[in-house]
C-alpha cells in the first residue's frame, strides 16, 4: 500500500515576498537576518548563534537552513531523504503569497509553479503538487477558473514516453486576506466539486502566514458573503486592538494585531455557508480538508474537554477550532482534516488516535507540514515517531480493521485525493 504525506512545502524564500520575515521579526532584525543569511558563511554564523540559544534556537536554525535553499528541488531532495526506504508519496502545497502586504516575491507566483513542475518532472512518481488558489490572483472569478483548469488540464512532459498531471488538488490560505466564501472563488469551487478535486485549506489558530496590511484587513474582514446574502459578522464585538509596550518597543505590535484580524478569514465556521451551498444546492459536495486540525493547542484542549482561557479572534469566540472542525466533519461527510504541524506536539497523539475511532475517522489525514516543522524537530524524527505509535494502534471503522498508520497515511489520503486527476 502506498502511504502519503498530505501536507508539505517545498517553496523557498525566493518564492516568499521580500518582507516575509517582517511578519515574524522586528523590521531591523528581519533585514539583518535576511542579508546575513544570503551567504553560506552568514547563514552558518546565524545558525551557529541560534544554536547557542538552546533548543529553540537550534530548531530555527534548521528551518532557516532549508528556507534559504536556492531552489525547491533541493528542499524536496532534503525531504525525500527523511523517509529512508519508505515508499511515501508527497503532496507539496504551492502558495500564492503576492498579496500579504509584504511586497512581491523574487520568483513570481507563476515562477513558483514552474519551479515545482520542474521538480515534478524529476520526481513524477513521488510528488503530488497542489495548486495554490487565491481570488486575487486573477482579474475575476471566470479568469481564475479558466487559469486553474488550464494548469490542471495541461500535462507535464516527463520524457518522450511519459506525461503526468501537473496538479492533484487546490490549496487555499485564507489568512493571507480572503474568505472561502469570496465570490471570485465560486466558479473554481464549482469546477473542483464537479471533478472531485480535493481542497486543502490552512486552519491553525494564530499560526502561519497572515496579511500584514492593516488598511486592507479593516476593509475586507467584514466582507459580503454571497452564499448567505449578508456581511460576515467580523470583527467580533469583543475584538480590541492589543497594546503591549514591549511589543511596541521592538516593533511587532502592529503585525500582532494584523495576525489577530487575519484569524477571521481562517475560522472553520466561515466555511459553513459554502459547504452547505455545494451539498444542498449544487448537490455536488466539496471535498475540503482543514489543515492542522485547528492547532495543537486546540486539539489538546478539546481532547481534555478543557475550556478556553480567553475569547478567540473569531465569530465563535468560545468554541475552539478543533471542536469547530469536528462539528463540520460530523455535519458534512466530505470534510476532512489533517494533523500536520500539530503532530509535533506529542500531547495531541492520544487525541488523534481517539478521533480515528469516530465516525469521521476515515477523514483524518497524515501530514507533517515540512519544512515549517523543522522549528519543532527533524522531519525524519517526526515521521518515525508518529508512524511507530500509529502502527501499534488498531482501528475498526465500518467493519474494517486496520492499523492506524495504514488508515491515516494510506486509505484516508487515497480517498481524499481521488478525483478525475488521481486514482480514477
Amino acid at each position, binding site marked *: 500500500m502506498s502511504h502519503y504525506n498530505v501536507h508539505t512545502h517545498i517553496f523557498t524564500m*525566493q518564492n516568499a515576498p521580500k518582507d516575509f520575515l517582517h511578519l515574524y521579526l522586528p523590521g531591523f532584525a528581519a533585514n539583518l537576518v535576511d542579508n546575513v543569511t*544570503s*551567504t*553560506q*558563511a552568514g*547563514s552558518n554564523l546565524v545558525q551557529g548563534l541560534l544554536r547557542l540559544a538552546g533548543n529553540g534556537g537550534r530548531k530555527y536554525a534548521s528551518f532557516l537552513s532549508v528556507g*534559504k*535553499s*536556492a*531552489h525547491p*528541488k*533541493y528542499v524536496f531532495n532534503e525531504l525525500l531523504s527523511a523517509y529512508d526506504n519508505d515508499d511515501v508519496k508527497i503532496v507539496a502545497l504551492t502558495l500564492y503569497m503576492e498579496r500579504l502586504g509584504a511586497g*512581491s516575491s*523574487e*520568483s*513570481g*507566483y*507563476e*515562477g513558483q*509553479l*514552474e*519551479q515545482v*513542475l*520542474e521538480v515534478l518532472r524529476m520526481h513524477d512518481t513521488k510528488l503530488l503538487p497542489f495548486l495554490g488558489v487565491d481570488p486575487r490572483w486573477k482579474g475575476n472569478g471566470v479568469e481564475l477558473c479558466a487559469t486553474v483548469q*488550464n*494548469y490542471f*488540464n*495541461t500535462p*507535464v512532459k516527463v520524457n518522450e514516453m511519459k506525461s503526468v498531471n*501537473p496538479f492533484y488538488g487546490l490549496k487555499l490560505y485564507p489568512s493571507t486576506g480572503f474568505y472561502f466564501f469570496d465570490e471570485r472563488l465560486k466558479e473554481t469551487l464549482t469546477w473542483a466539486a464537479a471533478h472531485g478535486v480535493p481542497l486543502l485549506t490552512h486552519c491553525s489558530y494564530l499560526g502561519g502566514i497572515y496579511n500584514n496590511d492593516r488598511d486592507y484587513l479593516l476593509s475586507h474582514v467584514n466582507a459580503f458573503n454571497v452564499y448567505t446574502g449578508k456581511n460576515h459578522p467580523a470583527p467580533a464585538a469583543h475584538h480590541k486592538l492589543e497594546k503591549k509596550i514591549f511589543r511596541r518597543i521592538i516593533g511587532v505590535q502592529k503585525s500582532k494585531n494584523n495576525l489577530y484580524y487575519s484569524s477571521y478569514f481562517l475560522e472553520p465556521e466561515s466555511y459553513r455557508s459554502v459547504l452547505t451551498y455545494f451539498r444542498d444546492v449544487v448537490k455536488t459536495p466539496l471535498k475540503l480538508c482543514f489543515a492542522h486540525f485547528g492547532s495543537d493547542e486546540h486539539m489538546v484542549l478539546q481532547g481534555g474537554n478543557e475550556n478556553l482561557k480567553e475569547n478567540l479572534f473569531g465569530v465563535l469566540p468560545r468554541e475552539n477550532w478543533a471542536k469547530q472542525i469536528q462539528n463540520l466533519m460530523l455535519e458534512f461527510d466530505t470534510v476532512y482534516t489533517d494533523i500536520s504541524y500539530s503532530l509535533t506536539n506529542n500531547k495531541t497523539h492520544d487525541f488523534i488516535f481517539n478521533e480515528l475511532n469516530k465516525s469521521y475517522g476515515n477523514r483524518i489525514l497524515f501530514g507533517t507540514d515540512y519544512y515549517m516543522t523543522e522549528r519543532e524537530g527533524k522531519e525524519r524524527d517526526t515521521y518515525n515517531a508518529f508512524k511507530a505509535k500509529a502502527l501499534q494502534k488498531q482501528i475498526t471503522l465500518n467493519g474494517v480493521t486496520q492499523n492506524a498508520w495504514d488508515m491515516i497515511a494510506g486509505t484516508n489520503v487515497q480517498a481524499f485525493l481521488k478525483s478525475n486527476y488521481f486514482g480514477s
Partner: protein
Amino acid sequence: MGLFELPLVSMAVSIIIIWALIAILTGFVHEAIAQWLAERGRFMRKWLMSQMNDKVNGINWASLIYLHGSVDLLTRDIKKPTGNISGKLFAQTLIEVVGKSHAAQMQSIEGARIDYSSEILKNLKHALMVLKPSDVITMIQQGLAIAETKAGTGLQREQVVYDELVKHIEIWFSEFEWRMSDWYKRKTKVRLFMLGTVIALALNVNSIELFHYVKHNAEGRERIIEYYEKNISQLEALAVKSESPQSFDILKKEIDEQKTRIEDLSKSADMPVGFDKSVFSSSKITSIRDFIVLIFGASLTGFAVSFGAPFWFDLLRKIYTLKKV
C-alpha cells in the same frame, strides 16, 4: 631641469607607485574574499534575477535558468551560484525555459500555425505568441524576428534562425555583463577602501608618513621609480589580474608574492613600510596626535586604493607619456 627632475613631481610619482603596489595587494585580497563568499556568482544572480523578473507573466526567468541542469551543474554549492555563465549557455537555456514553460504550454491560440519542425523553435514561437509582452518576452521576440529575416527561406533555415537568435541574446547578455561589471566595481569601491585601510594599518602604509619619507629621501624616491621602470609590464599585468576572478590557490600565491615584492622594495628603498614597522609590532602610538595621524594616513591610503590598481597604472602611463614628450 626637466619636469621630472623636480622633487615635487618625483615625490608624486613615488607615492602613486606605492599606492599602486598596495592597490594590487588589496585587489588580490579582495578577490580572495569574494571568491570565498562566491560573491561574483551571487552578484550576477542577484542582477539577473532583477533584470529577468517578468512581473507581467509572473515568472522570474532567471530563477528557471538557474534551475536548468546545464547551469545548475556549474554550481559548486547551492549558496555559491556560478559566476561563469557564458553568453551562449545563457541564450540557449533562456530559449528552452521560455518555450517549455507550463504557463506557455497551457495556452493555445485557435487557428495558429507554427511552421517549425524543431521542437525548441516551435515551443518558443508558441510561447512568444501566448505570453504577455513583458520586457523579456519583447527582447526575445525582437531577436526571433531578426533571426527569421536573416534566415530567409533556405534549406538550413531553422538552424540559421536558432543560431541568429542565440547570437542576439548573447549580445544582450554581453552588454549586461559589461554593465554588471561596472556595477560590481562601484559596489566594491567602499569595500576596497575599508580593506585598503586595514592593509595600510597592517603594513604601515601611512600616506602622511610616506609623504614625509619621499620629501626627505631622494635616494628612496629613485629606488622606487627605478623599480617601477624595470617592472612596468609585469606590474600592469598584475594590476589587471588583481581585479579578475581566479581560483583561491592562485590568489593566495599572488597575495604572498605581492607582499614579498612590497617588503623587498621597502627594504631596498629603506621605506617605513612593513608589518614590523606597523602599529601591531611596534609601539608607534605615544599620543593622540600619533593616533589621528595613523588613522588619517591609513584612510588616505585606503581611499587611494579604492580607485583600483589599473587606475593608478593608467595614471602612471599618462605621466610617462608626458615625460617622453
